[in-house]
């Protein structure tokens, strides 16, 4: 189509703009608005007028030790998941380059299968595997009467395992494609110079793959920071006494369980700001990798 000045792109973009404007931008504006209102069940049902409270939701949030506790848990949980996902994904990507055809096919098919499993059914399956009495894992290792989801750390660990299980395939596949694209001559030269596997990985592959790595890391951070379904399903909405809450679940719970919509919105805004910061880093990584938009 022509490159002359025309209104055609506007018409083509219009449907997308309408949908995204109505269901992305407007709700984002509303989220910001709700976060500065006193908006609870009374206002929803129209019993009381909506009141502008300024930064009150935020100040209450920031002085609440619970919030800081949840924030810390979220960051640590996401960090652990990202690290584990990357370690497993990168390790298996390197492994894939060194095995014969059949094992490679098996491993990539298995990873694809894990990738495809919906979060809800993945969670339920792992819950059954780790069930107190009927779980295969407890029976296999002879652990009696131990409920993995009662303890805060084992519960987080189990949820993290499901998250890693479902997200390492993306890292593996992406990095494997990257490694395969590295010119063989570079690796041969390294081998001739006497570099071992470990050294080749850290000093040749990692620097060459840095742009891809950056993207994989940031994508993982964004995904793992937003984990919702697994936590909600496995810990029944945040665990005993909310010990397994993350920011996402906390916001949801505040809004829809406690009807503190304004407060929930404020948590949502905080989360959005954190992810926005990560996104800016992502965009800069893209630009540095020579991406032309």
């Amino acid at each position, binding site marked *: 189509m022509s490159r002359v000045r025309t209104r055609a*792109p506007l018409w083509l973009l219009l449907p997308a703009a309408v949908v995204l404007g109505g269901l992305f931008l407007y709700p984002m504006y509303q989220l910001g608005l709700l976060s500065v209102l006193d908006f609870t069940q009374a206002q929803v049902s129209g019993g009381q007028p909506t009141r502008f409270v300024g930064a009150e939701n935020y100040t209450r949030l920031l002085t609440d030790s619970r919030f800081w506790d949840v924030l810390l848990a979220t960051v640590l949980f996401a960090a652990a998941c990202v690290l584990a996902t990357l370690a497993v994904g990168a390790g298996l990507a390197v492994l894939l380059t060194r095995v014969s055809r059949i094992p490679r096919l098996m491993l990539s098919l298995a990873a694809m299968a894990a990738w495809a499993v919906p979060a809800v059914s993945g969670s339920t399956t792992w819950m059954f595997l780790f069930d107190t009495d009927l779980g295969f894992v407890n029976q296999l290792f002879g652990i009696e009467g131990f409920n993995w989801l009662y303890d805060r750390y084992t519960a987080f660990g189990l949820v993290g395992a499901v998250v890693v299980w479902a997200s390492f395939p993306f890292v593996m596949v992406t990095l494997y494609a990257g490694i395969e694209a590295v010119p063989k001559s570079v690796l041969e030269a390294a081998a001739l110079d006497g570099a071992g596997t470990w050294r080749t990985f850290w000093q040749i592959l990692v620097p060459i793959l840095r742009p891809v790595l950056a993207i994989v890391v940031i994508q993982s951070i964004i995904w793992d920071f937003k984990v919702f379904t697994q936590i909600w399903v496995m810990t029944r909405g945040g665990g005993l006494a909310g010990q397994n809450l993350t920011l996402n679940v906390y*916001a949801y719970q505040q809004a829809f369980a406690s009807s503190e919509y304004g407060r929930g919105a404020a948590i949502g805004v905080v989360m959005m700001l954190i992810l926005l910061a990560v996104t800016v880093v992502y965009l800069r990584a893209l630009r540095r990798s020579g991406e032309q938009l």
Partner: protein
Amino acid sequence: MRAGRRVLDIVAVLIALVTVFPIYWMVLSAVKPAGEIQSLDQRPWTLAPSLDAFRRVLAVNDFGRYLLNSLIVALVVVAISGLIAFLAAVALTRFRFRFRTTVLVTFLIAQMVPIEALTIPLFFLVRDIGGVVPGVGLNTLGALMLVHTAFTLPFAIWMLRGFVSAIPDELDEAAQLDGAGRFTVLWRILFPLVAPGLAAVSVFSFIHAWNDFLFARTFIISEADNQTLPMALLVFFKPDENDWGAIMAASSLMTVPVLIFFLVVRRRLVAGLGGRSRIDTPTSCGTGGARHRRRFSGRLAHRPGPPGRGLPAGPVARGRGAAGRLRRRAVLRPADPGTTGVAGTVRPHRGRTPVRVAGCAARRGPALHARTRCPAIR
């Protein structure tokens, strides 16, 4: 060396088995008879498979209905978001206009927005819309279709962009020279060529809508008939005793369709990811995305090359009908007769991986990769 490889092979197979074990366990538990499920001595096999659990799930709890609901929502989302994304992707790749980059970055940022945080305003939005338009309020499938269309859109556009830009401009120009209007170019030329890419995008949209738990939970509050699979599945969790047989059967029903879908199109998925995470960045992974895209986008066998370097860069003529004719013409126009049968490596353009251009591949047909077809040019 040999032994080392054997060890690594075994390790890889073991990891594959561990990875796939939960899925095996899910399906196995779904077909285990009730007695074995409640046994304190679970065995990783069953000698008496039974479909009791499935029967319980489908008959007693009307799971078929939820399956259908999920399917309807997902298919509608796929259709609408695919269409809108196609139009937007064309606008973003075929035209240069002001704020183009801004629009692109907006779509990228939109992918990062924690949609979970938007549930709160969206809940009120959907409630208010429901007052005006009856079909899309709370407790309706329409509400789910609406939000999922919006949330799959940024990624779909971002991914389709790669597929559209892989179609050479010469095609559009040839069509326009032949007097095709803009609409004809869009539907008769671009749409058929992007169809394989659209299929890849559809899988992502489908899975997104199919897997969604959050919005189903938020919007479908009281209308049990309009529930979708993920919520319906949680019915089997009971405070006193979970019906694990039914849970696993329901999980299998939810997983297996997606699993088959995913495995069938897996290569295209990987190729499509190139559009999102830019696997095909110059330094490295590029070929992963680009090569797959070229190889698996079916009829489109375009070998990109830098303009003005002497070698023809264009699609290979193929296909019937108007699009095919135009495609043939597009090839013929820029090509110089002398290049047929010439094989060579195009120098990297902006640091891209060298692209091999093979005349002979062009003559014999595009479906085969230049390198596999013409070993001579290796």
